[in-house]
């Protein structure tokens, strides 16, 4: 079984620029999550999708972050404009159902300078 795929692995941008991350979940997994992990901390949920629909986006900074999941499969997370404090690893995860556990991708390390 192929795992959760994420790209790019690394991204360096200047503040106020925009950036997008891509995630392809495990085939058949209806639930998809985007997490933000700041160095030395545990992952923090940004948004959870169930198929095409958003289940929880209460911790997503909606003034600058947006996410979509087209056709209930791939997902993109966008930041516009980026701030220095957005420097983190962005992890995508997926699960068969809303109840865990779930599988993580390798993440995208974002550095905002």
């Amino acid at each position, binding site marked *: 079984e192929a795992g*959760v795929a994420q790209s790019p692995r690394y991204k360096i941008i200047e503040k106020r620029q925009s950036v997008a991350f891509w995630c392809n979940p495990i085939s058949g997994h209806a639930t998809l*999550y985007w997490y933000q992990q700041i160095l*030395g*901390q*545990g*992952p*923090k*949920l940004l948004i959870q999708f169930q198929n095409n629909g958003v*289940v*929880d986006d209460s911790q997503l900074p909606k003034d600058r972050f947006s996410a979509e999941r087209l056709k209930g499969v791939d997902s993109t997370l966008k930041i516009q404009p980026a701030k220095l404090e957005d420097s983190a690893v962005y*992890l995508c*995860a997926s699960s068969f159902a*809303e*109840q*865990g*556990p*779930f*599988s*993580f*991708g*390798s*993440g995208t*390390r974002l550095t905002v300078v």
Partner: protein
Amino acid sequence: EDQVTQSPEALRLQEGESSSLNCSYTVSGLRGLFWYRQDPGKGPEFLFTLYSAGEEKEKERLKATLTKKESFLHITAPKPEDSATYLCAVQGWDDKIIFGKGTRLHILP
């Protein structure tokens, strides 16, 4: 408010020196507690799910246990390759999943 607290933040052990990592939690109804291992530069890797107090799960040198307020990850006779950050997460009946900050484990040869 739901919370997950892991201790210690970091732990250094000699190879073969057994110990335990703690995960204490407060949640309005526990649907499941998860343990993950995270190596540097990688995403977390699933280890165990525990659903109810008294439950235990084992995998190689790792054993996870659960009470109504906390979970322990026991590591027996660890090897250097067990060095990693171990993350605990809880899922309440509202399906929200909260992670702790993790315990950085370093096993010295």
